[in-house]
């Protein structure tokens, strides 16, 4: 088996008395979708933030593509190939959809210190951006101001920007929230094919999507991973049923 692209080693993070991450270890291998599930407040987003570098763990390390990236900035980790989508959409709201996508393509290409070009006429960047928008189904919204998009569409734009980065791994925090039935179905099909390009660490609440997509599933409860395995293993794990899935049955 090849080395994992992403490896989280014993990450711990406390907020005051609250252990949001409790010696978490996990990895992401090429070609897979690794789902991270867990009840609200379990610490899923907190883990993603520590992987991408926007939050510093108290202890533990993150390894990416064979390199210890624990001390690198968010920007540096993105340059190395982490493509992140945010749970709460984080976009340039005054820009059009296309401008946001071009922003991603530009950030990835680098050479941003050009002062006299017309960036929205750069055919290379436009091609990358429009291709990404098409893949997520936003091609008809390219001229819309991002602030005027629905929540689901913003989520799709997050994914499109991540695509323009041509990342080595995707880290997606609930990319399907707010999409609606049709949108979710489209996104599931899309993510399913995306794993060939780069593996995905997928935080998701929609269990149908998780069981349809994930090669492996890790269950996070109160900052701790209580189980990792394929769909069948997770379904039949008594601890998981009690801590998490049982909750859903009751709901």
């Amino acid at each position, binding site marked *: 088996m090849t080395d994992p692209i992403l490896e989280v080693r014993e990450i711990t993070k406390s907020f005051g008395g609250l252990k949001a991450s409790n010696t978490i270890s996990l990895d992401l291998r090429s070609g897979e979708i690794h789902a991270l599930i867990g009840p609200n407040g379990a610490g899923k987003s907190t883990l993603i933030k520590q992987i991408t570098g926007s939050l510093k763990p108290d202890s533990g390390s993150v390894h990416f593509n064979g390199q210890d990236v624990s001390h690198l900035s*968010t920007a540096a980790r993105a340059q190395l190939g982490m493509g992140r989508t945010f749970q709460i959409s984080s976009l340039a709201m005054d820009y059009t959809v296309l401008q946001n996508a071009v922003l991603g393509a530009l950030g990835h290409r680098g050479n941003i210190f050009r002062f006299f070009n017309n960036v929205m006429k750069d055919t290379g960047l436009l091609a990358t951006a429009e291709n990404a928008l098409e893949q997520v189904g936003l091609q008809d919204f390219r001229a819309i101001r991002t602030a005027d998009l629905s929540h689901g569409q913003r989520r799709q734009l997050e994914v499109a920007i991540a695509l323009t980065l041509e990342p080595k791994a995707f880290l997606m925090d609930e990319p399907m929230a707010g999409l609606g039935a049709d949108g979710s179905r489209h996104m599931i099909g899309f993510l399913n094919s995306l794993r060939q390009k780069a593996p995905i660490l997928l935080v998701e609440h929609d269990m149908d999507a998780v069981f349809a997509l994930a090669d492996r599933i890790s269950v996070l409860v109160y900052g701790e991973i209580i189980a990792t395995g394929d769909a069948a293993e997770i379904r039949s794990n008594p601890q998981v049923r009690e801590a998490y899935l049982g909750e859903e049955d009751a709901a």
Partner: protein
Amino acid sequence: MNKETTLNIVLMTILVAVPVLAWMSDEPFLVTLATRAVIFAIAGVGLNFALGFGGLVSFGHAAFFGLGGYAMGILAFHAQTYTPMMEWPFVIEGTKAMPIIWLVAIIVSALVALAIGMLSLRTSGAYFIMITLAFAQMFYYFAISWPAYGGEDGLSIYVRNEFPGLNTMDPIQYFSICYVLLLLVLFIVHRAAHSSFGLMLRAAKQNEERVQAVGQVPNRLYLIAFTISGAITGLAGALFADLNRFVSPTMFSWHTSGEIMVFVILGGLGRVFGPVAGAALYILLEHSLGGLSAYWHIYLGAILLGVVIFARGGLYGLIAGREVAHD
């Protein structure tokens, strides 16, 4: 043609028509007033590059305005007194040549902006405002206490500096020089706003997290924006000092920083031509209200309050609406 472009053209036409008409009807005072507006506009366009495009609330742009002013004052002072600025290890003479003075003003302001930016950008929000203010105040007190160049009294220049082929003492000719420089600066800033750098910078203003997620570092963008911004405001300072043939510590005062900020906010934050509208309106108000009452700043304050509360996009937001995305 969209509303913004129309407004740009109308604005720039009025700005050149008023002084030309005034000159034809022998009203040199109005020509000088228009020149002031043009120079203030350049200073505002400079600040707008940091404040409007990068969201950097600098309350210290008087530092660059003053540095530009003193670059002109010191160079011209040595030229008119026939004393070299420096004799060792090599001789540097003063000069009366405007192009050289501008270049020196731009370079000095850019270097100082780079240094101030490196120190100030470690902070953000209210701290950034305070630290930029503090740097400008440092220059202010330094200028006051440096007797070699006039100290508190400032420096006077007997005749305006020279520009090849023109008589700079003729108000309309000096106006023309400043107007052309304004056009040049607007052209550069317009291009930069729509460039790769501009797209990334304006994204950082909206959302730093997004810029980091696409692999770029907001502070690097800010530092360059701040440097360019300071350089442009420095050029305006040199022109202003030449207009008055006088430079004094007042150019460094926080009052000056506030005025430059007023041009930007009045005109419309982040709109390339916004500060031009802001500076023109400011001069208009100063001229009309100033005649009515010595306390015209109170009325200006009220108008500014109105703009901030009711027309958040300034004059440009009010007339041209929200900025239209270029495709």
